[in-house]
């Protein structure tokens, strides 16, 4: 009897080892390697941004970030080796509800930091909630067992999906965290596009967004351009659906050389630090703009960390970073492409779009391509909630890579 049990156990182990070996073969190593490289770059950048600060806490920030990354690597593999289909089937709906609850709780009990009510105890629910929402939506659109059924390609399905997205987006906007809401919307739109949700609705959404953005830009331009009278400015701004600080950011985007000591200061210093980096940069830890506190200290480790990196490593360093991001993004698209099952494909492309939106908006804002939006740069910015979220997200994508083409024989 004992012998049988032993044999059973041995069989189980063998099976497990074979399974793990199989899964390891299916892991996308290019994406994994690029992610590790990005974590390394991030550790260096955080060290650089922090070591010149007067406050001793920031000197060891890079360590805590690295430890978090190592801890999150465990979660990453756990998620990667878990079949995402099971997670989506059993977990997505509860996760969605939990996310909504968290978003509501943060609005009531959250801590205010840097002008937004985003923190709950030690983490930012809006980061985690994005992942939950993406998985729920990908389940609803992609799964054969979806409660929406065939309806999802029709008008009613579109309406329901939009509503399900709109609730958390409105909650996130309440914090306010426009950047996070925008990245989430971008991911949802691409998922609608890939998942072939009612096309007319998608076109309407994109068109509305484009028209709204153009109108806002035009209105702010008209209001802020030199020669506009104060009454006219006030009259125009009354109809612009933005907070005053957001209007200022749009204004800085439109007229970057004005108001350089006040609202335009951050962008100007960001550009100066990136631009003065030149081809090869000033060397790790030798960034002058950050070292001499010209880059605002409160954000040089987070939203403006790309400036620190670009100043110290120059054009070469920024291209290396861009290439690493490109590798992660394109291998993500490749995983989605290879996935045989729509659910996984949608999940992968949604997460990769989210990732892409973060990268693009963060880098583009510091070189004046888009208005300044408070968004961290994945794996580079210090911020542990976001780091863990991003690793979980890429873990899910790896799970798609592993389990999304189970029919394939390696």
């Amino acid at each position, binding site marked *: 009897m004992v012998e049988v049990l032993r044999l059973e156990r041995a069989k189980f182990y063998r099976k497990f080892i074979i399974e793990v070996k199989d899964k390891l073969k299916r892991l996308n190593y290019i994406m994994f390697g690029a992610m590790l490289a990005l974590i390394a770059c991030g550790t260096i950048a955080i060290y650089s941004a922090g070591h010149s600060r007067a406050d001793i806490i920031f000197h060891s920030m890079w360590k805590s970030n690295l430890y978090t990354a190592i801890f999150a690597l465990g979660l990453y593999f756990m998620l990667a080796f878990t079949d995402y289909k099971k997670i989506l089937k059993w977990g997505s709906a509860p996760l969605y509800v939990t996310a909504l609850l968290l978003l509501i709780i943060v609005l009531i009990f959250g801590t205010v930091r840097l002008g937004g009510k985003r923190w709950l105890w030690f983490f930012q629910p809006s980061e985690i909630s994005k992942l939950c929402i993406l998985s729920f939506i990908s389940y609803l659109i992609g799964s054969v067992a979806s409660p929406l059924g065939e309806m999802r390609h029709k008008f009613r399905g579109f309406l329901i999906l939009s509503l399900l997205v709109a609730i958390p987006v409105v909650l996130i906007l309440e914090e306010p965290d426009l950047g996070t809401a925008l990245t989430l919307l971008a991911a949802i739109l691409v998922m609608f596009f890939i998942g072939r949700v009612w096309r007319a609705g998608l076109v309407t959404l994109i068109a509305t967004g484009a028209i709204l953005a153009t109108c806002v830009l035009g209105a702010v331009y008209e209001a802020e351009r030199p020669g506009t009278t104060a009454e006219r400015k006030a009259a125009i701004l009354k109809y612009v659906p933005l907070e005053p600080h957001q209007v200022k950011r749009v204004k800085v985007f439109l007229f970057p050389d004005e108001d350089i000591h006040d609202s335009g200061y951050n962008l100007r210093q960001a550009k100066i630090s990136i631009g003065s980096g030149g081809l090869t940069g000033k060397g790790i830890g030798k960034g002058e703009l950050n070292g001499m506190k*010209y880059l605002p200290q409160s954000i040089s480790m987070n939203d403006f960390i790309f400036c620190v990196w670009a100043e110290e490593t120059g054009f070469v360093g920024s291209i290396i970073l861009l290439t690493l991001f490109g590798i992660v993004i394109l291998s993500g698209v490749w995983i989605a492409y290879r996935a045989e099952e729509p659910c996984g494909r949608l999940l992968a492309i949604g997460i990769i779009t989210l990732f892409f939106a973060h990268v693009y908006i963060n880098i*583009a804002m510091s070189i004046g391509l888009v208005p300044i939006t408070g968004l961290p740069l994945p794996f580079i910015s210090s911020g542990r909630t976001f780091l863990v979220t991003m690793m979980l997200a890429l873990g899910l994508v790896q799970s798609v890579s592993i389990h999304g083409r189970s029919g394939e024989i390696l």
Partner: protein
Amino acid sequence: MSGTERFFKDLSLLVTGLVFTFFLILLAVRLKEVQIDSVAEYNLLKERQSVRLVQTAAPRGRILDRNGKELATNKKAFAIVLNPEGFQRKRQNDTIEAMIQALTNLSAIVRVPIEIDEELPQMLRRHLRRSQAMPYTVFSDVSDEVLARFFEHSDELAGFDLVERSERVYPCGSLASHIIGYVGRGEAESVVGDEKINFREKELVGRSGIEAYCDGYLRGVSGEKRLTVDARGYTVREREVREAIAGPDLKLTIDANLQQTVESALNGYAGACVVVDASTGEMLAVASAPSYNLNDFVPYLPHGVYSKMTNNAARPLVNRATGGTYAPGSIFKPITALAALAHGVKPSHQTMCDGIFTYGTLIMHCASRWGHGELDMVNAIKVSCNPYFAELGVVVGTNLLRKTAMEFGLGRLSEVDLPVDVSGYVPDGQSNEKIGFKWYPGELAQTAIGQGKLLVTPLQMAVMAAGLGTGRLPRPYVNFSNKPNVRKLNIPNYHLEIVREGMRRVVKRGGTGAAAAIDVKADVMGKTGTAEVGPRYNRRKNAWFIAYAKPNAESNKSSLARRSVALAIVLEKADSGGGSAAPRACKILSKIYN
């Protein structure tokens, strides 16, 4: 999955991937634009906000006398400064509080009192606002003991620093103080190159005398320092770009030994004395009394001392030699004589002097109460007879008198290379409404004997004496490297010879200035003058003596004694030219020739 569906799925993913790639390439292109194409522009912006250029002070050139003796030189002085970056706090008030705390501590350690009052925070605040990146001077020119205490406790004095500066020092103290002039600390205006200078170290700037006149020459070339400042304006590091170059030495025509004698000759009186080389115009000694000690102005003049100086009725700061105007009195009479000769009056022209001269409403007394009797021109000069020259003046008329005076440089600037140069005044026969002066004929007689509205400076008189002696009028100068500039007088030599004969007799036995040439081993001629000034109830006499001397066979053979010199001396509130001024001139001449 149907074929069409598969195709659309692939297509849409392809499109998505392409869109992502496109945006990433867009980022790369923009990054190239910022980091490669406009790197120079952004570097410039970076420099503009983080680099401050400081103009550093250069040591001033030394001032030497004609024999190379130092009259003004430099010493190394140490100043204790406070570096603001050592005290930075989040709020400015805290910064200032920390600074004051540290200053109190410093004061206790080096045992130098420091005034902690309401003004100190304001001064610190002003310093932070204007030149936060620069050190704040706490004590300038500290003594060796303070220095030793500072070094001993330097570990307790974080944020403070010692700065070496060049400070002026005058080995001869008050010698030739009016000629050398004093310096003060100020900001130099010279801008180096095209770059914008943000801060200027306080430099020594000449405020008077040759220090002011040759300021640009003495100052040297400023150096340049680059400070890198952080976002709050505190210095992070500094680098010297160019070292300051010390100013070149300036040699004066002054002879320090003679100057010493001249100054002691003035002892006891307010007045001035000028000794010039008669043939070149080099000023060998220029004294003005009362004087002041130049070392009092280093490192700065305490306010009390300065106000005492400016409120002093004797005006020690005024250079009487070039800037003091006096009525010349009888020393003007040679000019009247020359004008008369030019007018056609014979040298043998005789006048009866009965001690009084009347002209219209004017009644003029002669120095000799009962008159000199019959006099010719030579003897009139010898005894300085007022009626004789008053009469000549009336005969000659204003225009010729004025013309002759102007020929000798009176009534116009002497063009000396010193900041103070005044022209004096020679009446032109016109009333002057501005000064409320009404011309009447008697003024002419007054002018002829050197009284009335006539005003001259001691320097002009020395130059005039040189002109009388040599027939050529030199331009006076004090900077050794200047070239002599001598103008031939438009006066026939035989006219001058008559006047010279008179002036020779002045210093001989029986002359008014006999005291001037006693035991002087040189050929001396001179003229005394006693000018009366002030209202009748407060009449004062200014004693004058001018002399021209040239070496003779007995003279010393030193380089100084081989020159012919002209001198003018004036003593305020003295007895008479012959009694007060002539003996002092004698001392000076003996010093030169014996």
